[in-house]
């Protein structure tokens, strides 16, 4: 955790009664930051549920992750850094946005091959000019 983030988290914790500030369930005041946080929460997988993002789960651990995400975004962290932090804890599985690396290349290469193959097949059937 960056010192600035830690300070912000402490400040948040001290600022008010815990409930009113519980960022697990309550939007950030800054709409731009909230939008960033929600976009990230939509693409982080809940580790105790099946196939749901943390933004759409009632599980308590999902709430913990929402809180963490909002805190880090409010402290000025970039969404991708927060994602990387969660991936460093739980592995690639926790992110619905697959990291581009050799093992995930087929996700992009297979559709690309299908597209190229399809274009090639179609081009064999097309008659150019007048027929």
């Amino acid at each position, binding site marked *: 955790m960056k010192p600035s983030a830690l300070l912000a988290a402490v400040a948040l914790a001290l600022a008010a009664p815990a409930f009113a500030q519980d960022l697990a369930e309550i939007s950030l005041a800054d709409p731009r930051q909230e939008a960033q946080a929600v976009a990230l929460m939509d693409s982080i997988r809940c*580790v*105790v549920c099946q196939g749901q993002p943390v933004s759409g789960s009632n599980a*308590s651990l999902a709430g*913990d992750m929402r809180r963490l995400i909002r805190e880090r975004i409010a402290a000025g962290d970039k969404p991708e850094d927060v994602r990387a932090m969660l*991936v460093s*804890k*739980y*592995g690639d*599985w926790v992110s619905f946005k697959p990291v581009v690396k050799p093992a995930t290349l087929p996700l992009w290469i297979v559709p690309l091959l299908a597209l190229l193959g399809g274009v090639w097949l179609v081009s064999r059937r097309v008659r150019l000019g007048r027929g």
Partner: protein
Amino acid sequence: MNRKVLLWAPFVLVVALFGAFFVGLRNPDDRVIASQMVGKPLPEFSAAAVMPGQPGTASSDYRDGKPRMINIFASWCVPCAAEAPMLAQLKAAGAQIDGIAVHDAPEPLAKFLAQNGNPFSRIGLDPEGRAQIAFGSAGVPETFVVDGQGKIIYQHIGIVEPKDVPMLLNLLGIKP
């Protein structure tokens, strides 16, 4: 020739796909999310004291050269009660066990420990799951083994069963 290869391509693809499904069925998805923190130094965390006379726990406690176990549990977790005898056995054999109680509160925790025994040297409360996430833990109960240098060397997911006890003692460097 060219066209023939092309026409058999879908068949070959599907057979390969079904091969993968077959393997997938043989090794059904275990749904276990392993922590990526194993092999890495302990993360920064702190879990405040909650039981009278028992200290809380924080990352700074693990630099004294002694290997320890950290048990992540909760009083509301039914399987956690089931592993209590094994934790007691480990403690009796000389293991140092620290507990982190997730999403818990003093009262039910005291009741749980009175009922199931208290094998812990330290117990910290983790009301917002911060320590749990720091460990990369995805549920309760989970048990981490930390070596004397403050490195996580093992994660046990689920209940500690009798058969796991010798292995855990071995990791802790305790001769049975």
